[in-house]
Each structure stands twice: as C-alpha cells, then as structure tokens.
C-alpha cells in the first residue's frame, strides 16, 4: 500500500486489474485503492510478472503493507510467497479499525479469531463500503444469509455523507499540520494579464474547443519556469531538511463539487509545451472530479498552484501543503484601473500571492520569484 500523501495512513484495495500470471510493465495501472480522497489508481514501478495478490479485495491495510508479489524478469521463481502473514485487516463489522498510530505493530485479531454471532448475517466488503457511503445501518437489515452489494444497492441511494467527511478529514489533517509546523510568510503582487489574455484569445480563435487554452495553463507554465531560477520554492521539507526537486511537479488545487479539494501533480510542468500542459490539466481535472487519481499524483507534488478562477475574489492567502514549502495563489482576474504608459487605464489584472516556508526561504527571494512569474506572463508566446 503506497503512501498517497502525507496524511494517508491506510487504504482499502477495491480493484485488481491484473490476474496472477499476467505480465506487468512499469507504469501499468494494476489496482485501485480507496482512500480518504477517493479511489486512486496504483501504478507498478517495475517490469515483471504478477505472481500473487497478497491482500484481498475490500481489505484495509496500513501504508507499507505489500499488496502483491511481482517477479522481476529473470528472477527465480519465488518459492515462499507468504513468509509472514500480511498485516491486513478484513473490513468486517466485527473488526474495529487499523491502529493508525502504530501501523507496524498491528494488534488486531485475525479474521478467523473474530467470533461472529450466529444470528448476524455476513456482509461482503463491497456491500459494507456502499452501505457506509450511503449511511445505511447494517444492523437494521433483516436479511438472512449473506448481504451482497446488490442487496445494499436495492435499498436505493441516500445522501452520501461519507466521502465528504473523509475528504474533510484529510484536508483537516494536512492543513492542521501545516499551520502547526510551517512558519508561513506571505507576499502579493498585482500582475497585468492583458498580454496573456490576448495570447489566449488569439491562439483559441481558430481552434476547436478540445484544443483551446485556458489562462490556467499559462499560470502553470509561468510558475514552473520561474521555479527554475528560484528552486528553493520547489521541493519537500522532510526530517528538518529541505530536499530541492529538479523537476517541477506542480500540484494543482482542484475543487471537487460538494466534496472538497485536492491538489494532484502535473508532472514535469517545466518541460511540457503549453498545449501539452493544457491537455494534461484537462485530463487531470476530469479524472480527479470523476474520483480517480494515480498514486504518484498525490504524493509527489513539489509545489502547489491554486487559482480562484473567473468567479472568485481578488486575493487568497494559501496554506502550504506539507511537506511542500510554497503555494502560489492566483486571484480572480478583473478589469482594474492601472497606470500603463503614464495613463490610468482599465486593464485585466490579477493579484498573485505566495505563501512560503520561512525555514527554507526569505521574503526577498519570494518577491523575486513572484516578479519572475509576472515577467513570464508578460511574454506568453515564449511560454
């Protein structure tokens, strides 16, 4: 079970996409796990053959527990596939919870050891999950025998409080840690967006909708380019040390209707041409809003970009997503009186802010970083 973010402590295997004996290649999606943030796709990091699944569907396991055994190419057949009992907890009503604080020392009973009252029906894990999502109390069901997914589905849908509260819990954990540990400092800078806006309009004029750019792609590229010169805002602060990242994996704050907010990464944003970056953004937003992430997207971002879009307010004061060290915020662009070439004129502009970690950088460099973003947005054709 990979760690899909600083706040994740356990996950539930909900989908196996390959069978034992199937060949797998680095980058293949082999499974999906349910976390506080929704269903997330799991990539495999080596080539080989999937020998065996070590965790059952519906099983919640702490981060670090092996999900499957993969035999690398050329590696000898592994004789002993289950050297130790997996530290897994079957998602059963008699089970309690994973001890999140000490995931390496599970103190939970094994499934076999858990007595089930004879009069209580068995509930399949999928059914249990759906019931939890829909707020259905399993104790109120009078069904005899096994309760399956279709039994729960037949009860109809009710409002789903569970995903919302899970996401809220995840946000709460990360943001509390941020405010507890990170000494934030804040800077803001008004950026004239006339050039960027004109570039987008010109570019889009003869393009089909699926190929059109949004200002958001220009923000992303401008931030990524500015980071090449100001790398102290790009990386992770782990074990009292700042680990600078060469690549810019730009976490994009994405609002999910009625659920909350996540900030998965756009990988290698600095090296992607603007059109590719825009495609990647569209793909990411669509998947995230549909509830599917890739594991690395949640764990590997090196900085966050958050934009209020067209219908927000002037300025935002970001909270850094640990262990990152900076978040750039773009206020809603609007026509504002600006002195341009000596005259007061109405120009499209937006307040751009930086919240950064004072353990790693100072306001002087932060200011230069914001001005570098400004400079790149004045030359959109060079992005």
């Amino acid at each position: 079970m990979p760690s899909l973010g600083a706040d994740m402590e356990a996950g539930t295997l909900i989908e196996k996409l390959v069978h034992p004996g199937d060949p797998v290649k680095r980058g293949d999606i082999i499974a999906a796990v349910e976390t506080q943030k929704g269903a997330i796709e799991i990539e495999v990091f080596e080539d080989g053959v999937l020998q065996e699944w070590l965790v059952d569907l519906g099983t919640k396991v702490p981060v670090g527990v092996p999900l499957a055994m993969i035999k690398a190419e050329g590696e000898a057949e592994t004789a002993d596939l289950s050297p130790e009992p997996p530290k897994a907890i079957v998602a059963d009503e008699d089970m309690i919870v994973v001890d999140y604080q000490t995931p390496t020392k599970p103190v939970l009973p094994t499934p076999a050891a858990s007595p089930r009252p004879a009069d209580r029906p068995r509930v399949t894990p999928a059914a249990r999950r759906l019931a939890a999502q829909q707020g259905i109390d399993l104790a109120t069901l009078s069904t005899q025998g096994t309760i399956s997914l279709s039994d729960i589905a037949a009860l109809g849908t009710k409002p789903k409080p569970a995903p919302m509260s899970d996401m809220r819990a995840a946000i709460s954990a990360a943001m509390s840690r941020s405010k507890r540990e990170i000494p934030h400092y804040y800077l803001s800078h008004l950026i004239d967006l006339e050039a960027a806006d004109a570039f987008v309009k010109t570019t889009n004029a003869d393009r089909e909708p699926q190929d059109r750019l949004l200002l958001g792609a220009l923000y992303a590229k401008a931030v990524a380019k500015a980071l090449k010169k100001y790398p102290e805002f790009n990386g992770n602060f782990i074990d009292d040390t700042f680990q600078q990242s060469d690549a810019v994996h730009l976490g994009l704050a994405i609002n999910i209707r009625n659920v909350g907010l996540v900030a998965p990464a756009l990988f290698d944003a600095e090296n992607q041409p603007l059109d590719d970056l825009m495609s990647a953004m569209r793909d990411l937003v669509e998947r995230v809003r549909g509830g599917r992430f890739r594991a690395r997207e949640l764990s590997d971002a090196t900085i966050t970009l958050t934009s209020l879009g067209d219908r927000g307010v002037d300025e935002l004061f970001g909270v850094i997503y640990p262990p990152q060290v900076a978040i750039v915020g773009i206020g809603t662009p609007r026509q504002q009186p600006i002195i341009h070439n000596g005259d007061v004129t109405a120009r499209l502009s937006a307040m751009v802010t930086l919240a950064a970690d004072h353990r790693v950088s100072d306001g002087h460099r932060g200011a230069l970083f914001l001005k570098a973003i400004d400079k790149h947005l004045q030359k959109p054709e060079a992005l």
Partner: protein
Amino acid sequence: MSDQDIASAVGEELYRIAPDIDLEDIVRDADLQEEFDIDSMDFLNLVTALGKRFQIDMPEADYDEMRSFDALVEYISDKTA
C-alpha cells in the same frame, strides 16, 4: 430540432458536469456559470461536448452569446437552423 430538444440536450450535458444542480431550480436567463457553479474548465468541457453533439462551430469569440442557459439554447438553435 425544436428549442425544447436543444434545451434537454444542454440539460443533459450540464448534468454530466453539475449533477447536483436541478434544471428546475436555476434561473435560465441568469449567468450560466453562476447558476451551475461551474468554472472555466467546466465551461470549456461543456462547449466541447455541445459542439460535437450538434456538429456546430462554437468559437471562443461567441462565448458572450452563451452566458445564460436560455442564451446558449438560442445560440445552438440559430446555429442548427
């Protein structure tokens, strides 16, 4: 195609993006993005879907003619007439 057919098609595409908003509850001549709480990415996806569905060109320069639900239906109606 009647305006009613177009309206229900637009309603379907909006439902994909904003399933929590009931067409019955919105003000049809008010700002579409406000009424459905959609952002520029959602709007771009909506235009992409509608352009394909009705096989019409929906240039960005015309966005101002698509600002409300009613305006969008009328725009498509004119284009498909």
